[in-house]
């Protein structure tokens, strides 16, 4: 029996049909489905797919103009490397949303919109194999694209992508979800439908993502009216740092050699080569410019209904 490729199979070696993440540098990753006869063209050279098949996951390979690493896809790597079709939810928000939804294997989750499918993948991987993701979008190109990706990534059996405006027509399932995630411009319109889609006997969680505060204000009111409790809005602001080695010059050294171009040795006044000063490893905020806001996350609980 041949097994279909899947993000959820953890074989040691790469097989044809697997999706791999070709890692060039921190900022440069390309996701590719391995197929005999094809060649990956990158900025740093070409790589024949034949050469990838049978190699270990995580192995370094030579392209024509430098090394690359072939990584096993994870939720985070997929988010960072996926083709951007629209606004995207990054790992920090995805992680938080999964937690706020109390998502775990077996959970039934409704999502709207599908967007780039970044969060959809994160949810599908988390609820598999016994749960299910229903993802909704008004744009058919997005749902069909993510459906295709789920197929390639072995996640079809735990996902359903639906073209549907949840703000007017509600969700694909009613009285069955453990969690609902909303990333729509007018969440307050979808919130009554979200309440309907949640399992009455188990209750469930609602998470809404909105960039603007005015959206949050209306969403909070709508949640309270729809019977949600423990309503809370949070904002995450991640900060990325890198490690650099830093001088610990004495004042004498500074007087002698200055602070410019610290990587080179300098000649002092007598023309002698002067040693570099002591250095320590230290963390600095990098890059200097970073995302400082993505959106507010408003979350709430719908309690089980008393019969």
């Amino acid at each position, binding site marked *: 029996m041949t097994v279909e490729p899947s993000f*959820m199979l*953890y074989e*040691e070696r790469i097989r044809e049909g697997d999706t791999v993440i070709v*890692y060039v540098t*921190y900022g440069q990753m390309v996701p590719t489905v391995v197929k005999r006869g094809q060649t990956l063209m990158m900025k740093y050279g070409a790589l024949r797919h034949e050469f990838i098949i049978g190699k*270990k996951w*995580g*192995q*370094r390979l030579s392209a024509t103009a430098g090394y690359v*690493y072939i*990584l*096993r896809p*994870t*939720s*985070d790597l997929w988010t960072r490397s996926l083709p951007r079709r629209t606004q995207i939810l990054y*790992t*920090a928000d*995805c*992680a938080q949303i*999964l*937690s*706020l939804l*109390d998502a*775990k*294997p*077996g959970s039934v989750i409704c999502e709207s919109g599908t967007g780039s499918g970044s969060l959809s993948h994160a949810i599908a*991987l*988390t609820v*598999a*194999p*016994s749960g299910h993701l229903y993802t909704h979008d008004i744009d058919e190109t997005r749902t069909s694209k993510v459906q295709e990706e789920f197929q390639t990534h072995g996640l079809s*059996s735990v996902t359903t992508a639906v073209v549907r405006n949840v703000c007017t027509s509600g969700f694909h399932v009613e009285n069955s979800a453990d969690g609902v995630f909303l990333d729509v411009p007018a969440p307050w319109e979808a919130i009554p439908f979200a309440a309907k889609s949640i*399992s009455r*006997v*188990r*209750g469930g969680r609602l998470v809404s993502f909105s960039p603007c*505060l005015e959206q*949050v*204000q209306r969403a909070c009111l709508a949640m*309270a*009216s729809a*019977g949600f409790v*423990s309503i*809370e*809005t*949070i*904002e*995450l*602001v*991640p*900060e990325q*740092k890198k*490690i650099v080695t830093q001088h610990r010059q004495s004042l004498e050294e500074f007087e002698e050699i200055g602070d410019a171009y610290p990587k080179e040795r300098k000649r002092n006044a007598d023309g002698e080569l002067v040693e570099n000063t002591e250095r320590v490893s*230290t*963390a600095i905020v990098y890059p200097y410019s970073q995302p400082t806001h993505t959106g*507010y996350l*408003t979350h709430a609980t719908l*309690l*089980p209904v*008393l019969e």
Partner: protein
Amino acid sequence: MEAETPPQTSSCINSGEYLIVQKIDGEQSRIVRFTPKQKILIEKLKFTADSAFGKPHGLFEVSNNQCFPMSVDRLIEELQLQEAPVATSVIDTEVITFETVEVSDPRVVIAPSALKLEPEQKRQKLEMDAVLEMKKQGVSGQDLVAKLVEGSASFQTRTVFSQSKYIKRKAKKHSDRVLILRPTIRLLAKAYYLKDPDRLAMLRADQLALILQMAGVHHGKNVIVFEQTLGLITSAVIERLGGKGGCVHIHRGAVAQSIPCVHSMNYDEKTLSTFLPVRIKCILAEKQLPYETNRRPFDDEAENGGVEHKAAEKIEDQDLEVLARRNERLDKEKRGLEMISEQKAHSLIIGSRTVDPISVLELVYPKLAPSASIVIYSPHQNILVSAYDWLAKRQTINLVLTDQMCRVMQVLPDRTHPLMAQHVAGGHVLSGIKVVDQ
């Protein structure tokens, strides 16, 4: 594909279950094991566990030491009644004055001259005896508030806006509504963080979420965990594995202890089957060691624990059941050690408080499968800078150090702003991916 696990249909409270208890609008969150005859205490509210048995998880009203299921609709009606006057756009200076009272800035010395009682506090003080008397008589919180509002000398002279504030403040103080919920990792994380951040290495719920995502923990993965966070990271990993894969839990002593977060999740056997405790000793020896049957395990942690529950194990060598449990433990440890020695682990998570992560990396990193994710949490940035250097020397790729701010917003009509004060202690997360050359 595996067979589907049955959906959790039972939302009834059973004896012996660990549960989360919160007051509506309360500050605390308690994790309590509900056993017969037990008294449950939460922010001065008291009821017997028995009164909750057989009822669905959710909202309760407490009265006469009993809790009674309550409809959410009623709660919402009441809240809307209180909030209604606020929804107008009146702004007065009281907004600011009131908020000043809420901010507790530890950097401020309240000089003696400022230590006089606010007029309102004075009034409240006089009313206190009456309140206590009413409570004794079993008057419900709702009625209590009504009586207080009625009796407040200054109430008639207040603006509509401050009236609603007043009612709300009172409602908060005398509320007798509690939520009794099935524990989730998120609720556990929050409860322990607020209770004793030190014991949890200051790990915040939002950072725990990030750790799980960066480590790529999903059904079927093999994950090695070394943590000093009361079992919180381990428990979260176990939940996400959903009964397949493995969570190697490296622990001190003979038995995994001080992991209340694993116990209080009420996991079923299948879910717990992925929990593979491995003794540090075995990791150091790179092989499984026999139990030294004449020595009891270290238990000073249990003493110092200050946690509400501890590992139920007591070793009595004569007991057959104990022997069976030990054999099971040895089997699981064997599985865990094999996962390491055969390089089958897809993720390594270190959440340390006193142990240098490098000490763990030296033993475990070489045994990880290539393409494995490494995630290290520490409240100390310095410690992670060293770990970063260590990993960078071994060609670990995708290395990044992140920190994140998590703020709660107050969202109220005309009063929207981030909370004025909040627990902010936390740590840093270092992550990377192992690769191989050949």
